[in-house]
Protein backbone atom coordinates (compact mmCIF):
# COMPACT_ATOMS: atom_id res chain seq x y z
CA UNK A 1 0.00 0.00 0.00
CA UNK A 2 1.71 3.18 -1.16
CA UNK A 3 0.22 6.22 0.49
CA UNK A 4 0.65 9.91 -0.24
CA UNK A 5 -0.19 12.39 2.51
CA UNK A 6 -0.72 16.04 1.65
CA UNK A 7 0.45 18.35 4.39
CA UNK A 8 0.28 22.10 4.88
CA UNK A 9 2.59 23.97 7.17
CA UNK A 10 0.80 26.90 8.76
CA UNK A 11 1.57 29.67 11.22
CA UNK A 12 1.12 28.91 14.87
CA UNK A 13 -2.08 30.91 14.94
CA UNK A 14 -1.97 31.75 18.63
CA UNK A 15 1.29 33.61 18.08
CA UNK A 16 0.01 35.97 15.38
CA UNK A 17 -0.22 39.52 16.65
CA UNK A 18 -2.17 42.43 15.20
CA UNK A 19 -0.56 45.59 13.89
CA UNK A 20 -2.33 48.30 15.86
CA UNK A 21 -2.37 50.85 13.06
CA UNK A 22 -3.28 48.75 10.02
CA UNK A 23 -5.12 45.95 11.88
CA UNK A 24 -3.27 43.51 9.64
CA UNK A 25 -1.66 40.34 11.00
CA UNK A 26 2.01 40.33 11.99
CA UNK A 27 3.42 37.02 10.90
CA UNK A 28 7.08 37.90 11.09
CA UNK A 29 8.90 35.69 13.55
CA UNK A 30 5.82 33.54 14.15
CA UNK A 31 6.66 29.85 14.49
CA UNK A 32 5.15 27.44 12.02
CA UNK A 33 3.69 24.03 12.46
CA UNK A 34 1.97 21.26 10.59
CA UNK A 35 -1.77 21.92 10.40
CA UNK A 36 -3.58 19.79 12.99
CA UNK A 37 -5.76 17.56 10.83
CA UNK A 38 -2.89 16.95 8.41
CA UNK A 39 -1.16 15.30 11.34
CA UNK A 40 -4.20 13.03 11.72
CA UNK A 41 -3.87 12.17 8.02
CA UNK A 42 -0.17 11.37 8.41
CA UNK A 43 -0.79 9.34 11.56
CA UNK A 44 -3.47 7.33 9.77
CA UNK A 45 -1.15 6.71 6.83
CA UNK A 46 1.59 5.47 9.13
CA UNK A 47 -0.85 3.19 10.95
CA UNK A 48 -2.09 1.76 7.63
CA UNK A 49 1.49 1.13 6.55
CA UNK A 50 2.26 -0.53 9.88
CA UNK A 51 -0.65 -2.90 9.24
CA UNK A 52 -0.50 -3.43 5.49
CA UNK A 53 3.08 -2.57 4.58
CA UNK A 54 4.09 -0.18 1.80
CA UNK A 55 5.35 3.37 1.89
CA UNK A 56 4.22 6.76 3.12
CA UNK A 57 5.25 9.85 1.16
CA UNK A 58 4.56 13.27 2.61
CA UNK A 59 3.93 16.13 0.18
CA UNK A 60 4.46 19.26 2.16
CA UNK A 61 3.62 22.82 1.32
CA UNK A 62 6.21 24.28 3.63
CA UNK A 63 9.76 24.09 4.84
CA UNK A 64 12.34 21.46 5.72
CA UNK A 65 11.36 21.86 9.37
CA UNK A 66 7.90 20.46 8.64
CA UNK A 67 9.45 17.72 6.52
CA UNK A 68 11.67 16.66 9.43
CA UNK A 69 8.67 16.48 11.70
CA UNK A 70 6.66 14.45 9.19
CA UNK A 71 9.58 12.05 8.76
CA UNK A 72 9.95 11.73 12.53
CA UNK A 73 6.24 10.93 12.74
CA UNK A 74 6.83 8.04 10.38
CA UNK A 75 6.74 9.18 6.74
CA UNK A 76 9.33 7.37 4.62
CA UNK A 77 10.13 10.31 2.42
CA UNK A 78 9.14 13.93 2.12
CA UNK A 79 8.74 16.27 -0.81
CA UNK A 80 8.57 19.97 -0.03
CA UNK A 81 7.29 22.67 -2.31
CA UNK A 82 6.45 26.31 -1.91
CA UNK A 83 2.71 26.94 -1.81
CA UNK A 84 2.20 30.64 -2.09
CA UNK A 85 -1.10 30.33 -3.93
CA UNK A 86 -4.80 29.61 -3.31
CA UNK A 87 -6.67 26.32 -3.18
CA UNK A 88 -6.96 26.08 -6.96
CA UNK A 89 -3.24 26.66 -7.33
CA UNK A 90 -2.29 24.24 -4.58
CA UNK A 91 -4.51 21.46 -5.93
CA UNK A 92 -3.03 22.01 -9.37
CA UNK A 93 0.54 21.78 -8.04
CA UNK A 94 -0.28 18.66 -6.03
CA UNK A 95 -1.98 16.98 -8.99
CA UNK A 96 1.11 17.70 -11.07
CA UNK A 97 3.48 16.18 -8.49
CA UNK A 98 1.25 13.18 -7.80
CA UNK A 99 0.90 12.49 -11.51
CA UNK A 100 4.51 11.28 -11.50
CA UNK A 101 4.13 9.12 -8.41
CA UNK A 102 2.93 5.59 -7.73
CA UNK A 103 0.19 5.39 -5.12
CA UNK A 104 -2.84 3.47 -3.91
CA UNK A 105 -4.22 5.99 -1.47
CA UNK A 106 -4.02 9.73 -0.88
CA UNK A 107 -4.81 11.14 2.55
CA UNK A 108 -5.48 14.77 3.42
CA UNK A 109 -6.71 16.54 6.52
CA UNK A 110 -10.34 17.58 6.05
CA UNK A 111 -9.25 21.24 6.24
CA UNK A 112 -6.32 23.35 7.33
CA UNK A 113 -6.94 25.09 10.61
CA UNK A 114 -5.88 28.51 9.33
CA UNK A 115 -8.18 28.69 6.29
CA UNK A 116 -10.79 26.09 7.17
CA UNK A 117 -11.93 25.90 3.59
CA UNK A 118 -12.14 22.09 3.20
CA UNK A 119 -11.06 22.37 -0.42
CA UNK A 120 -7.76 20.66 -1.13
CA UNK A 121 -8.88 17.03 -0.79
CA UNK A 122 -11.99 17.29 -2.99
CA UNK A 123 -10.19 19.48 -5.55
CA UNK A 124 -7.21 17.15 -5.81
CA UNK A 125 -9.39 14.06 -6.25
CA UNK A 126 -11.38 15.88 -8.91
CA UNK A 127 -8.20 16.98 -10.66
CA UNK A 128 -6.73 13.50 -10.87
CA UNK A 129 -10.06 11.75 -11.35
CA UNK A 130 -10.18 9.37 -8.41
CA UNK A 131 -12.94 8.76 -5.85
CA UNK A 132 -12.98 11.07 -2.84
CA UNK A 133 -14.31 10.12 0.58
CA UNK A 134 -14.49 13.14 2.86
CA UNK A 135 -14.71 13.58 6.66
CA UNK A 136 -13.40 10.10 7.49
CA UNK A 137 -13.47 9.01 11.11
CA UNK A 138 -12.53 5.41 10.40
CA UNK A 139 -10.74 3.75 7.49
CA UNK A 140 -10.57 0.08 6.59
CA UNK A 141 -8.81 -1.47 3.65
CA UNK A 142 -9.40 -4.79 2.02
CA UNK A 143 -8.66 -6.21 -1.37
CA UNK A 144 -8.26 -3.09 -3.42
CA UNK A 145 -11.22 -1.46 -1.73
CA UNK A 146 -11.51 1.18 0.93
CA UNK A 147 -14.34 1.42 3.42
CA UNK A 148 -14.70 4.71 5.22
CA UNK A 149 -16.98 5.85 7.99
CA UNK A 150 -17.80 9.49 7.35
CA UNK A 151 -19.08 11.92 9.94
CA UNK A 152 -21.76 14.26 8.61
CA UNK A 153 -24.00 16.75 10.40
CA UNK A 154 -26.61 14.39 11.73
CA UNK A 155 -25.46 10.99 10.56
CA UNK A 156 -22.57 8.67 9.93
CA UNK A 157 -22.18 7.11 6.52
CA UNK A 158 -20.36 3.91 5.80
CA UNK A 159 -19.04 4.30 2.27
CA UNK A 160 -16.94 2.24 -0.08
CA UNK A 161 -14.78 2.95 -3.12
CA UNK A 162 -12.16 1.26 -5.23
CA UNK A 163 -8.52 2.15 -4.89
CA UNK A 164 -6.80 4.38 -5.74
CA UNK A 165 -8.87 6.85 -3.78
CA UNK A 166 -8.47 10.05 -1.81
CA UNK A 167 -9.70 10.33 1.78
CA UNK A 168 -9.93 13.45 3.92
CA UNK A 169 -9.79 12.72 7.64
CA UNK A 170 -11.26 14.38 10.71
CA UNK A 171 -9.49 14.79 14.02
CA UNK A 172 -11.59 11.99 15.49
CA UNK A 173 -9.84 9.33 13.42
CA UNK A 174 -6.81 9.02 15.69
CA UNK A 175 -4.49 10.79 18.05
CA UNK A 176 -1.36 11.74 16.15
CA UNK A 177 1.83 10.54 17.77
CA UNK A 178 4.30 13.05 19.10
CA UNK A 179 7.66 11.95 17.75
CA UNK A 180 10.05 10.61 20.37
CA UNK A 181 13.76 11.34 20.50
CA UNK A 182 14.57 8.03 18.83
CA UNK A 183 12.06 8.67 16.06
CA UNK A 184 13.51 12.14 15.52
CA UNK A 185 17.06 10.83 15.36
CA UNK A 186 15.97 7.89 13.20
CA UNK A 187 14.42 10.23 10.68
CA UNK A 188 17.55 12.28 10.10
CA UNK A 189 18.70 9.98 7.30
CA UNK A 190 15.40 9.91 5.39
CA UNK A 191 15.16 11.67 2.07
CA UNK A 192 13.79 15.17 1.66
CA UNK A 193 13.30 16.38 -1.90
CA UNK A 194 12.75 20.05 -2.54
CA UNK A 195 10.94 21.00 -5.70
CA UNK A 196 9.93 24.35 -7.12
CA UNK A 197 6.98 23.87 -9.42
CA UNK A 198 6.01 26.76 -11.70
CA UNK A 199 3.47 29.03 -10.05
CA UNK A 200 0.02 27.97 -11.24
CA UNK A 201 -2.89 30.26 -11.96
CA UNK A 202 -4.93 31.14 -8.92
CA UNK A 203 -8.70 31.52 -8.76
CA UNK A 204 -8.92 34.04 -5.97
CA UNK A 205 -7.08 37.19 -5.06
CA UNK A 206 -6.91 38.39 -1.48
CA UNK A 207 -7.34 42.14 -1.28
CA UNK A 208 -6.86 42.64 2.44
CA UNK A 209 -6.69 40.83 5.76
CA UNK A 210 -7.76 42.70 8.88
CA UNK A 211 -8.26 41.77 12.49
CA UNK A 212 -11.76 41.32 13.77
CA UNK A 213 -12.80 43.99 16.19
CA UNK A 214 -13.99 42.54 19.43
CA UNK A 215 -17.15 44.30 20.46
CA UNK A 216 -18.09 42.71 23.71
CA UNK A 217 -19.38 44.57 26.74
CA UNK A 218 -16.76 43.20 29.15
CA UNK A 219 -18.85 43.97 32.22
CA UNK A 220 -17.62 42.34 35.41
CA UNK A 221 -20.50 41.51 37.74
CA UNK A 222 -20.17 41.42 41.47
CA UNK A 223 -22.56 38.69 42.50
CA UNK A 224 -24.27 35.60 41.28
CA UNK A 225 -27.77 37.13 41.49
CA UNK A 226 -26.87 39.71 38.88
CA UNK A 227 -25.43 36.93 36.75
CA UNK A 228 -28.66 34.97 37.02
CA UNK A 229 -30.62 38.03 35.84
CA UNK A 230 -28.37 38.41 32.82
CA UNK A 231 -28.77 34.72 32.01
CA UNK A 232 -32.54 34.93 32.18
CA UNK A 233 -32.78 37.92 29.89
CA UNK A 234 -30.18 36.60 27.43
CA UNK A 235 -31.78 33.19 27.10
CA UNK A 236 -35.20 34.56 26.18
Amino acid sequence: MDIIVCIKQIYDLGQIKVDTASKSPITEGVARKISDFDKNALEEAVRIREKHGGTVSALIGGTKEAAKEALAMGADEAVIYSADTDSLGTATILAEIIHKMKYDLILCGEASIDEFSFQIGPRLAQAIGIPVLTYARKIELNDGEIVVERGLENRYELTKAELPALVTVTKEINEPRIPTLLQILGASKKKITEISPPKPEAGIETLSITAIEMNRKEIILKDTEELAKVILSASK
Partner: protein
Amino acid sequence: MDFSFTEEQELFRKSVREFCEKKIAPKANEIDEKGEIPREVVEDMASFGILGITIPQEYGGSGADFITAAIATEEIARADISMATAVYYLVEAGWGFLMDRYGSKKAKEELLPDVTKGKTFLGIASTEAAGGSDVAAISTTMTKEGEKLVVNGSKTFISGVREATKYGGGYVTVVKTSQELAHKGLSLCYLPVKDIPGITTNIFKQMGREGISTGAIIIKNVEIPSHYLIGDWNKGFYYAMEGFNCARPLVAAACIGAAGKALEAGIEYLKERQAFGSPLAKFEGIQFQVAEAYAKLESARLLVYKAAWMLDQMYTKKRFRHKEINKAVASAKLIAPTVAFDIIKDVLIWHGAYGYTKEAGLEKGLRGVASYIMGAEGAQNIMKLIIGRELLGKEFAPY
Protein backbone atom coordinates in the same frame (compact mmCIF):
# COMPACT_ATOMS: atom_id res chain seq x y z
CA MET B 1 31.64 28.92 18.19
CA ASP B 2 28.01 28.11 17.53
CA PHE B 3 25.25 28.68 20.07
CA SER B 4 22.46 27.06 18.08
CA PHE B 5 20.81 23.75 18.81
CA THR B 6 20.82 21.15 16.04
CA GLU B 7 17.68 20.69 13.93
CA GLU B 8 17.04 17.43 15.76
CA GLN B 9 17.36 19.12 19.13
CA GLU B 10 14.97 21.87 18.07
CA LEU B 11 12.46 19.31 16.85
CA PHE B 12 12.89 17.34 20.06
CA ARG B 13 12.16 20.44 22.12
CA LYS B 14 9.02 21.03 20.07
CA SER B 15 7.98 17.42 20.58
CA VAL B 16 8.59 17.47 24.32
CA ARG B 17 6.76 20.76 24.64
CA GLU B 18 3.74 19.36 22.81
CA PHE B 19 3.88 16.24 24.94
CA CYS B 20 4.16 18.22 28.17
CA GLU B 21 1.35 20.60 27.21
CA LYS B 22 -0.91 17.63 26.53
CA LYS B 23 0.02 15.23 29.26
CA ILE B 24 1.62 17.15 32.11
CA ALA B 25 0.40 20.77 32.14
CA PRO B 26 -3.30 19.84 32.54
CA LYS B 27 -2.35 17.88 35.68
CA ALA B 28 0.11 20.39 37.16
CA ASN B 29 -2.29 21.74 39.80
CA GLU B 30 -3.44 18.26 40.71
CA ILE B 31 0.17 17.12 41.11
CA ASP B 32 0.84 19.91 43.57
CA GLU B 33 -2.46 19.64 45.44
CA LYS B 34 -2.59 15.88 45.79
CA GLY B 35 1.13 15.63 46.38
CA GLU B 36 1.49 12.90 43.81
CA ILE B 37 2.30 12.54 40.14
CA PRO B 38 -0.61 10.54 38.70
CA ARG B 39 0.55 7.14 37.56
CA GLU B 40 -0.63 7.79 34.01
CA VAL B 41 1.70 10.77 33.75
CA VAL B 42 4.64 8.51 34.60
CA GLU B 43 3.38 5.91 32.12
CA ASP B 44 2.91 8.56 29.43
CA MET B 45 6.44 9.84 29.99
CA ALA B 46 7.72 6.28 29.68
CA SER B 47 5.88 5.58 26.45
CA PHE B 48 7.08 8.91 25.09
CA GLY B 49 10.59 7.61 25.80
CA ILE B 50 11.82 10.29 28.16
CA LEU B 51 12.10 8.32 31.38
CA GLY B 52 15.71 7.34 31.86
CA ILE B 53 16.41 9.13 28.61
CA THR B 54 20.20 8.89 29.05
CA ILE B 55 20.04 5.11 29.57
CA PRO B 56 21.07 3.17 26.45
CA GLN B 57 18.51 1.75 24.06
CA GLU B 58 19.29 -1.85 25.05
CA TYR B 59 17.67 -1.09 28.40
CA GLY B 60 14.75 0.80 26.93
CA GLY B 61 16.25 4.27 27.14
CA SER B 62 17.20 6.59 24.31
CA GLY B 63 20.91 6.94 24.99
CA ALA B 64 20.44 10.71 24.99
CA ASP B 65 23.28 13.10 25.64
CA PHE B 66 23.09 15.74 28.35
CA ILE B 67 22.09 18.62 26.10
CA THR B 68 19.08 16.60 25.00
CA ALA B 69 18.36 15.55 28.59
CA ALA B 70 18.53 19.19 29.66
CA ILE B 71 16.11 20.25 26.91
CA ALA B 72 13.57 17.73 28.19
CA THR B 73 14.13 18.84 31.79
CA GLU B 74 13.54 22.46 30.90
CA GLU B 75 10.34 21.61 29.07
CA ILE B 76 8.98 19.35 31.81
CA ALA B 77 9.58 22.07 34.39
CA ARG B 78 7.78 24.58 32.16
CA ALA B 79 4.70 22.35 32.24
CA ASP B 80 4.89 21.62 35.96
CA ILE B 81 6.66 24.54 37.59
CA SER B 82 6.32 22.95 41.03
CA MET B 83 9.40 21.00 39.88
CA ALA B 84 7.92 17.69 41.06
CA THR B 85 7.69 16.08 37.65
CA ALA B 86 11.04 17.50 36.60
CA VAL B 87 12.67 16.04 39.70
CA TYR B 88 11.18 12.60 39.06
CA TYR B 89 12.57 12.77 35.54
CA LEU B 90 15.97 14.29 36.16
CA VAL B 91 17.00 12.10 39.07
CA GLU B 92 16.51 9.07 36.85
CA ALA B 93 18.21 10.72 33.88
CA GLY B 94 21.27 11.64 35.97
CA TRP B 95 21.63 8.56 38.14
CA GLY B 96 20.39 6.14 35.50
CA PHE B 97 23.30 7.29 33.39
CA LEU B 98 25.70 6.59 36.23
CA MET B 99 24.14 3.23 36.95
CA ASP B 100 24.62 2.28 33.33
CA ARG B 101 28.21 3.46 33.38
CA TYR B 102 29.34 1.59 36.47
CA GLY B 103 26.66 -0.92 37.43
CA SER B 104 27.14 -4.66 36.77
CA LYS B 105 25.63 -5.99 33.57
CA LYS B 106 23.42 -8.31 35.60
CA ALA B 107 22.07 -5.44 37.70
CA LYS B 108 21.49 -3.25 34.67
CA GLU B 109 19.61 -5.98 32.81
CA GLU B 110 17.55 -6.65 35.89
CA LEU B 111 16.79 -3.07 36.91
CA LEU B 112 17.06 -0.52 34.12
CA PRO B 113 14.31 -1.75 31.76
CA ASP B 114 11.74 -1.27 34.52
CA VAL B 115 13.03 2.25 35.13
CA THR B 116 12.67 3.26 31.49
CA LYS B 117 9.23 1.64 31.37
CA GLY B 118 8.16 3.80 34.31
CA LYS B 119 7.42 0.75 36.45
CA THR B 120 10.03 1.49 39.08
CA PHE B 121 11.76 4.59 40.39
CA LEU B 122 15.51 5.06 40.51
CA GLY B 123 16.87 7.68 42.88
CA ILE B 124 19.93 8.77 44.75
CA ALA B 125 20.46 8.20 48.47
CA SER B 126 23.47 10.05 49.75
CA THR B 127 22.46 12.52 52.47
CA GLU B 128 22.40 11.39 56.08
CA ALA B 129 21.01 12.98 59.22
CA ALA B 130 24.41 14.22 60.34
CA GLY B 131 24.87 16.12 57.12
CA GLY B 132 24.35 16.00 53.42
CA SER B 133 27.05 17.67 51.54
CA ASP B 134 29.99 16.24 53.46
CA VAL B 135 29.80 12.85 51.83
CA ALA B 136 33.08 11.72 53.30
CA ALA B 137 31.40 11.68 56.73
CA ILE B 138 28.83 9.12 55.63
CA SER B 139 28.12 6.50 58.25
CA THR B 140 25.82 4.03 56.51
CA THR B 141 27.90 0.89 56.12
CA MET B 142 28.07 -1.96 53.70
CA THR B 143 29.89 -5.19 54.50
CA LYS B 144 30.50 -8.39 52.58
CA GLU B 145 28.95 -11.47 54.12
CA GLY B 146 29.56 -14.49 51.97
CA GLU B 147 27.85 -13.98 48.63
CA LYS B 148 25.78 -11.12 49.98
CA LEU B 149 26.30 -7.50 50.85
CA VAL B 150 24.74 -6.17 54.04
CA VAL B 151 23.79 -2.53 54.47
CA ASN B 152 23.12 -0.73 57.75
CA GLY B 153 22.38 2.89 58.52
CA SER B 154 19.96 5.54 57.35
CA LYS B 155 19.51 8.10 54.61
CA THR B 156 17.43 11.21 54.73
CA PHE B 157 15.98 13.94 52.49
CA ILE B 158 15.68 11.36 49.77
CA SER B 159 13.46 12.08 46.76
CA GLY B 160 10.84 9.57 45.70
CA VAL B 161 10.75 7.43 48.84
CA ARG B 162 7.00 6.89 48.74
CA GLU B 163 7.03 6.27 44.98
CA ALA B 164 9.84 3.73 45.27
CA THR B 165 8.28 1.87 48.19
CA LYS B 166 4.80 1.92 46.67
CA TYR B 167 5.53 1.08 43.05
CA GLY B 168 8.97 -0.42 43.33
CA GLY B 169 12.44 0.88 42.79
CA GLY B 170 15.56 1.71 44.63
CA TYR B 171 18.49 3.98 45.10
CA VAL B 172 22.01 4.51 44.02
CA THR B 173 23.25 4.59 47.59
CA VAL B 174 26.49 5.95 48.99
CA VAL B 175 27.84 3.66 51.71
CA LYS B 176 30.96 3.40 53.84
CA THR B 177 32.92 0.26 53.07
CA SER B 178 36.22 0.99 54.81
CA GLN B 179 35.93 2.73 58.15
CA GLU B 180 39.61 3.62 58.34
CA LEU B 181 39.55 5.56 55.10
CA ALA B 182 37.73 8.87 54.62
CA HIS B 183 36.21 9.53 51.21
CA LYS B 184 38.35 6.76 49.77
CA GLY B 185 36.43 4.30 51.91
CA LEU B 186 33.11 4.87 50.18
CA SER B 187 31.32 2.60 47.72
CA LEU B 188 28.15 2.79 45.72
CA CYS B 189 25.43 0.18 45.69
CA TYR B 190 21.91 -0.22 44.42
CA LEU B 191 19.51 -0.45 47.34
CA PRO B 192 15.99 -1.73 46.58
CA VAL B 193 13.34 -0.47 49.00
CA LYS B 194 9.98 -2.05 48.15
CA ASP B 195 9.00 -4.96 50.38
CA ILE B 196 12.57 -5.41 51.59
CA PRO B 197 13.01 -6.80 55.12
CA GLY B 198 14.94 -4.29 57.18
CA ILE B 199 13.82 -1.21 55.21
CA THR B 200 11.52 1.27 56.89
CA THR B 201 10.70 4.73 55.58
CA ASN B 202 9.39 8.06 56.72
CA ILE B 203 7.80 10.70 54.55
CA PHE B 204 8.40 14.38 55.29
CA LYS B 205 5.96 17.21 54.85
CA GLN B 206 7.70 19.81 52.76
CA MET B 207 7.38 23.38 51.67
CA GLY B 208 7.09 22.58 48.02
CA ARG B 209 7.55 20.28 44.98
CA GLU B 210 5.06 18.10 46.78
CA GLY B 211 4.25 15.90 43.82
CA ILE B 212 7.32 13.84 44.51
CA SER B 213 7.83 12.63 48.07
CA THR B 214 10.86 13.31 50.19
CA GLY B 215 11.69 11.15 53.15
CA ALA B 216 14.07 9.01 55.11
CA ILE B 217 15.10 5.42 54.67
CA ILE B 218 16.18 3.40 57.70
CA ILE B 219 18.27 0.45 56.70
CA LYS B 220 18.69 -2.39 59.17
CA ASN B 221 20.69 -5.45 58.16
CA VAL B 222 19.44 -5.27 54.60
CA GLU B 223 20.91 -7.99 52.44
CA ILE B 224 21.50 -7.25 48.79
CA PRO B 225 23.09 -9.47 46.14
CA SER B 226 26.72 -8.79 45.33
CA HIS B 227 25.94 -7.69 41.78
CA TYR B 228 24.22 -4.62 43.26
CA LEU B 229 27.64 -3.18 44.03
CA ILE B 230 28.12 -0.30 41.58
CA GLY B 231 31.63 -0.17 40.16
CA ASP B 232 34.66 -1.04 42.26
CA TRP B 233 34.81 -1.41 46.02
CA ASN B 234 35.92 1.81 47.72
CA LYS B 235 35.64 3.87 44.52
CA GLY B 236 32.18 5.16 45.34
CA PHE B 237 33.18 8.70 46.15
CA TYR B 238 34.40 9.31 42.62
CA TYR B 239 31.32 7.75 41.07
CA ALA B 240 29.08 9.80 43.32
CA MET B 241 30.86 13.03 42.39
CA GLU B 242 30.51 12.12 38.74
CA GLY B 243 26.84 11.36 39.25
CA PHE B 244 26.27 14.71 40.90
CA ASN B 245 28.00 16.38 37.98
CA CYS B 246 25.54 14.66 35.67
CA ALA B 247 22.45 15.49 37.70
CA ARG B 248 23.27 19.08 38.60
CA PRO B 249 23.04 20.63 35.12
CA LEU B 250 19.62 18.99 34.86
CA VAL B 251 18.58 20.48 38.19
CA ALA B 252 19.66 23.86 36.88
CA ALA B 253 17.78 23.21 33.63
CA ALA B 254 14.62 22.51 35.62
CA CYS B 255 14.99 25.80 37.47
CA ILE B 256 15.33 27.84 34.29
CA GLY B 257 12.43 25.94 32.72
CA ALA B 258 10.13 26.91 35.58
CA ALA B 259 11.42 30.48 35.68
CA GLY B 260 11.15 30.86 31.91
CA LYS B 261 7.52 29.81 32.01
CA ALA B 262 6.79 32.15 34.91
CA LEU B 263 8.48 35.04 33.13
CA GLU B 264 6.41 34.45 30.01
CA ALA B 265 3.24 34.47 32.09
CA GLY B 266 4.44 37.61 33.84
CA ILE B 267 5.13 39.47 30.61
CA GLU B 268 1.67 38.60 29.27
CA TYR B 269 0.16 39.86 32.51
CA LEU B 270 2.12 43.11 32.50
CA LYS B 271 0.92 43.91 29.01
CA GLU B 272 -2.71 43.24 29.90
CA ARG B 273 -3.02 44.56 33.42
CA GLN B 274 -3.85 48.24 33.70
CA ALA B 275 -2.98 50.52 36.59
CA PHE B 276 -3.36 54.29 36.73
CA GLY B 277 -4.55 54.28 33.16
CA SER B 278 -1.83 52.35 31.44
CA PRO B 279 -0.53 48.79 31.26
CA LEU B 280 1.87 47.80 34.03
CA ALA B 281 4.43 47.04 31.33
CA LYS B 282 4.70 50.76 30.61
CA PHE B 283 6.11 51.54 34.04
CA GLU B 284 9.84 51.80 33.83
CA GLY B 285 10.35 50.35 37.29
CA ILE B 286 8.59 47.22 36.11
CA GLN B 287 10.15 47.18 32.69
CA PHE B 288 13.65 47.23 34.16
CA GLN B 289 12.74 44.24 36.29
CA VAL B 290 11.61 42.42 33.18
CA ALA B 291 14.85 43.24 31.43
CA GLU B 292 16.93 42.11 34.39
CA ALA B 293 14.92 38.93 34.74
CA TYR B 294 15.48 38.13 31.09
CA ALA B 295 19.21 38.85 31.21
CA LYS B 296 19.66 36.77 34.35
CA LEU B 297 17.64 33.92 32.94
CA GLU B 298 19.65 33.95 29.72
CA SER B 299 22.93 33.90 31.62
CA ALA B 300 21.76 30.97 33.75
CA ARG B 301 20.59 29.22 30.63
CA LEU B 302 23.96 29.62 28.98
CA LEU B 303 25.64 28.14 32.04
CA VAL B 304 23.25 25.19 31.99
CA TYR B 305 23.79 24.34 28.35
CA LYS B 306 27.51 24.96 28.54
CA ALA B 307 27.79 22.52 31.45
CA ALA B 308 25.66 19.97 29.58
CA TRP B 309 27.74 20.46 26.45
CA MET B 310 30.98 20.00 28.38
CA LEU B 311 29.69 16.75 29.85
CA ASP B 312 28.80 15.53 26.37
CA GLN B 313 32.22 16.53 25.09
CA MET B 314 33.84 14.71 27.99
CA TYR B 315 31.90 11.50 27.44
CA THR B 316 32.06 11.40 23.67
CA LYS B 317 35.35 13.12 22.86
CA LYS B 318 37.28 12.84 26.10
CA ARG B 319 37.62 16.61 26.24
CA PHE B 320 37.86 18.63 29.47
CA ARG B 321 39.28 17.58 32.78
CA HIS B 322 37.14 16.94 35.85
CA LYS B 323 38.35 20.19 37.31
CA GLU B 324 36.86 22.19 34.46
CA ILE B 325 33.64 20.19 34.48
CA ASN B 326 33.33 20.69 38.24
CA LYS B 327 33.53 24.45 37.90
CA ALA B 328 31.09 24.65 35.00
CA VAL B 329 28.55 22.37 36.65
CA ALA B 330 28.80 24.04 40.05
CA SER B 331 28.40 27.47 38.43
CA ALA B 332 25.22 26.41 36.67
CA LYS B 333 23.82 24.85 39.83
CA LEU B 334 24.87 27.87 41.89
CA ILE B 335 23.29 30.46 39.62
CA ALA B 336 20.16 28.84 38.15
CA PRO B 337 18.12 28.15 41.32
CA THR B 338 18.79 31.62 42.73
CA VAL B 339 17.98 33.32 39.46
CA ALA B 340 14.84 31.21 39.08
CA PHE B 341 13.74 31.96 42.63
CA ASP B 342 14.23 35.71 42.10
CA ILE B 343 12.40 35.72 38.78
CA ILE B 344 9.41 33.77 40.04
CA LYS B 345 9.29 36.00 43.12
CA ASP B 346 9.27 39.12 40.92
CA VAL B 347 6.57 37.66 38.67
CA LEU B 348 4.47 36.91 41.77
CA ILE B 349 4.86 40.48 42.95
CA TRP B 350 3.81 41.82 39.54
CA HIS B 351 0.62 39.82 39.93
CA GLY B 352 -0.21 41.51 43.23
CA ALA B 353 -2.62 39.73 45.55
CA TYR B 354 -3.60 37.40 42.73
CA GLY B 355 -0.04 36.14 42.60
CA TYR B 356 -0.38 34.96 46.17
CA THR B 357 -3.33 32.72 45.30
CA LYS B 358 -2.96 29.08 44.33
CA GLU B 359 -5.15 29.77 41.30
CA ALA B 360 -2.50 31.96 39.72
CA GLY B 361 -0.42 28.78 39.62
CA LEU B 362 2.84 30.59 40.28
CA GLU B 363 3.50 30.17 43.98
CA LYS B 364 4.13 26.45 43.61
CA GLY B 365 7.04 27.38 41.36
CA LEU B 366 8.57 29.51 44.05
CA ARG B 367 8.20 26.75 46.62
CA GLY B 368 9.56 24.18 44.21
CA VAL B 369 12.61 26.10 43.09
CA ALA B 370 13.40 26.89 46.73
CA SER B 371 14.23 23.23 47.28
CA TYR B 372 17.30 23.69 45.13
CA ILE B 373 18.47 26.65 47.10
CA MET B 374 18.16 24.87 50.43
CA GLY B 375 19.73 21.66 49.26
CA ALA B 376 19.11 18.77 46.92
CA GLU B 377 21.95 17.68 44.67
CA GLY B 378 24.26 19.92 46.67
CA ALA B 379 23.39 23.13 48.49
CA GLN B 380 24.40 26.53 47.19
CA ASN B 381 27.30 26.93 49.59
CA ILE B 382 28.70 23.59 48.49
CA MET B 383 28.71 24.82 44.91
CA LYS B 384 30.77 27.76 46.11
CA LEU B 385 33.13 25.42 47.93
CA ILE B 386 33.60 23.41 44.75
CA ILE B 387 34.27 26.48 42.64
CA GLY B 388 36.57 27.88 45.35
CA ARG B 389 38.50 24.67 45.58
CA GLU B 390 38.99 24.44 41.83
CA LEU B 391 39.94 28.10 41.52
CA LEU B 392 42.22 28.43 44.53
CA GLY B 393 43.57 24.94 44.83
CA LYS B 394 42.90 22.13 47.28
CA GLU B 395 45.33 23.57 49.80
CA PHE B 396 42.88 26.38 50.46
CA ALA B 397 39.93 24.06 51.10
CA PRO B 398 38.44 24.90 54.49
CA TYR B 399 37.99 21.22 55.37
